[in-house]
């Protein structure tokens, strides 16, 4: 018998010992970051960067496969007891000696996770991790000239790149409301002092928004540069247009932080994605009834919110709890009780 087969036998036996739980349920108690466990990380330190941004140092579990500069990672954090998932760019270099990874988070107004991480996260806390992903990365072959065009927290993936590989000729144009809002400002200025980076800061509070046409004056040879741009949609749209106009669209790489803006209204178009049915629903009819009326096979029980026999994944959009008025937005892994939830805008129910 091969050792793999032997190990799987042994595991089966262990499962018999621990049934109805799994051996990992017990192992997680002592070693949540071990190889073979669900991927998790432990927060080891929180370093403030600006008044509203902080870098979180995470020790990833043994299953962590590393990242490529520019990629992001999804993390699951328990905020007020509720597990919420968000994506953040990795800001540490890929060859960090101690194997830790860092993300740098800017607290956005009303942002549950970002405010929690920046202001309340404590070293020692376990978080859930996904493997790093994203194709906003540097190419294998080093380009001769590089431009980084960033705004606000759009600097985070680029910082991961800057820290990872040195290029001969790098220019960065970065926008932030005021000098003190520039994340990593000291480190950037150190790079400038060492002649490793040419930096233009645009302070939008005083200079106004960056007009993309000004690039000709800020970086005269911008069209010859391999460019990585990350920031708000407005900036990226303008950049894409500009690069296309000049026929150099293939030199521009952009990363959009998907804004999760759900407008919670009253009713909306409900999609039952498994069956492929779409119907209009008002804000008062339980989604269970909406689905059944549309001929979708919906699991159900008490129909009054007590048995949890109707829970179904909410894939997109938002729903309102008809008892409390509470809004639930779609996130991976979110299940709703369809008998006491109504559409609060367009939504997608996995049935």
């Amino acid at each position, binding site marked *: 018998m091969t050792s793999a087969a032997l190990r799987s036998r042994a595991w089966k*036996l262990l499962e*018999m*010992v*621990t*049934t*109805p*739980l799994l051996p990992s*349920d*017990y192992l997680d*108690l002592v070693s949540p970051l071990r190889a073979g466990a669900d991927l998790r990380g432990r927060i080891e330190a929180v370093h403030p960067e600006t008044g509203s941004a902080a870098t979180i140092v995470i020790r990833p579990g043994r299953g962590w496969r590393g990242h490529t500069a520019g990629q992001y990672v999804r993390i699951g954090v*328990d905020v*007020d*007891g*509720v*597990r*919420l998932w968000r994506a953040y760019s990795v800001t540490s270099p890929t060859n960090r000696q101690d194997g830790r990874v860092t993300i740098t988070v800017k607290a956005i107004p009303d942002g549950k996770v970002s405010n929690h991480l920046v202001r309340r996260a404590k070293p020692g806390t376990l978080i859930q991790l996904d493997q790093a992903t994203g194709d906003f990365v540097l190419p294998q072959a080093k380009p001769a000239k590089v431009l980084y065009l960033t705004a606000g927290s759009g600097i985070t993936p680029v910082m991961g790149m800057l820290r990872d590989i040195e290029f001969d000729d790098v220019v960065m144009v970065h926008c932030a409301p005021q000098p003190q809002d520039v994340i990593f400002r000291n480190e950037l200025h150190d790079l400038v002092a060492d002649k490793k980076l040419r930096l233009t800061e645009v302070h939008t509070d005083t200079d106004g928004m960056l007009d993309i046409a000004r690039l000709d004056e800020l970086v005269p040879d911008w069209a010859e540069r391999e460019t990585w741009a990350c920031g708000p949609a407005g900036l990226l749209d303008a950049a894409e247009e500009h690069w296309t106009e000049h026929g150099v669209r293939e030199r521009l790489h952009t990363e959009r932080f998907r804004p999760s803006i759900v407008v919670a209204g009253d009713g909306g178009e409900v999609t039952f994605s498994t069956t492929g049915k779409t119907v209009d629903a008002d804000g008062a009819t339980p989604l269970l009834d909406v689905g059944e009326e549309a001929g979708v096979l919906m699991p159900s*029980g*008490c129909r*009054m*919110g*007590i*048995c*949890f*026999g109707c*829970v179904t994944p909410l894939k997109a959009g938002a729903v309102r709890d008809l*008892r*409390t008025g*509470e809004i639930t937005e779609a*996130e991976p*892994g*979110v*299940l709703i*009780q369809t008998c006491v939830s109504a559409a609060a805008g367009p939504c997608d129910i996995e049935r």
Partner: protein
Amino acid sequence: MTAIDPTAHLTAEQIEELGRELDAIRDEVIADRGEKDAAYIRKVISAQRKLELVSRGVLLFSIFPPAWLIGTAGLSVAKIMDNMEIGHNILHGQWDWMRDPKIHSTTWEWDHVSPADQWKHSHNELHHTYTNVIGKDNDLGYGIMRVDEDQRWHPFHLGQPLWNFINACFFEYGIAAYDLELGKNLHKRRRKNPEFRARARAVGRKIRKQVLKDYVIHPLLSGPSFLTTLAATFTANLVRNIWTHSVIMCGHFPEGVQVFERRSIKGETRGQWYLRQMMGSANISGSKAMHFMTGNLSHQIEHHLFPDLPSNRYAEVAVKVRALFEKYELEYVTGPLPKQVFSAWHKVFRLSLPNKKPKVNTPDREQELVAA
């Protein structure tokens, strides 16, 4: 179905107002639910796992009597925690709001021969929706007992104290059979029903795993302590079964708890539903440890009003609920465990004998009772 309706003094408006006040209590807890509650259930789960591990470890040496005693006691408590404060409550969806896929009603499995999803159907859906409605809620007497004066007596009922005792000892099997609706489904025609067969197979698989673990694997691992470990596990299961059976009997059987006719719930309003839960349940009074070991089902009244609120909140909710009972002049049935257990058993014995013809009787009701 006592001759005098203890809610007769309430007007329809009052009942709806009562419902609104209960909704407000629920909303308050939900708005305040958070980190502390999440930390609580995680702590309980981790304590249970550690206790079970240590107890099973000690039982490896159960050939020595002190080890047997300690291991058996620990394992009994671990099994009770698994079923009561953890399993029952997670399967009610009380912790679904945490969005932790590992502590969720859709993924949890418990140390019990009834598979979680079958139990959720019969318990969450049938028992909690139709609480104490004769003919609808089979938790009333589990289909083997007469629980109300108005039910027709049958010589079979003479044995009900014995049935109840046997059911207590092998309670988890009783529940599994009950979740399968075995009585109904063993009829020749229904036995072949593919849906029933699939469920029966699932129970079979679960039983096999549970029995293998408790009565084969762990004793084998104990080597020379094989027999003593076997005896210890059997004892722990017995203790757990009798304990949960007692707690559950106290929830709906003690004197003073009302049962309802099927037609009484037609077109029931939210307020009326709440009122039925209030009149159909009974509490157990006692210490914090007592509440914990019953999985907070000692707060059965509160649990039936708000089955999806985290169990660690029932104690604080109980104060407000009790005030409402007083305000609306309703009887809050509660008492210490021995008293409630005695009261429930007393009823089992009393109703095993025929009683005088029920005072109120309509043909319609007679039919229902026969159907029940």
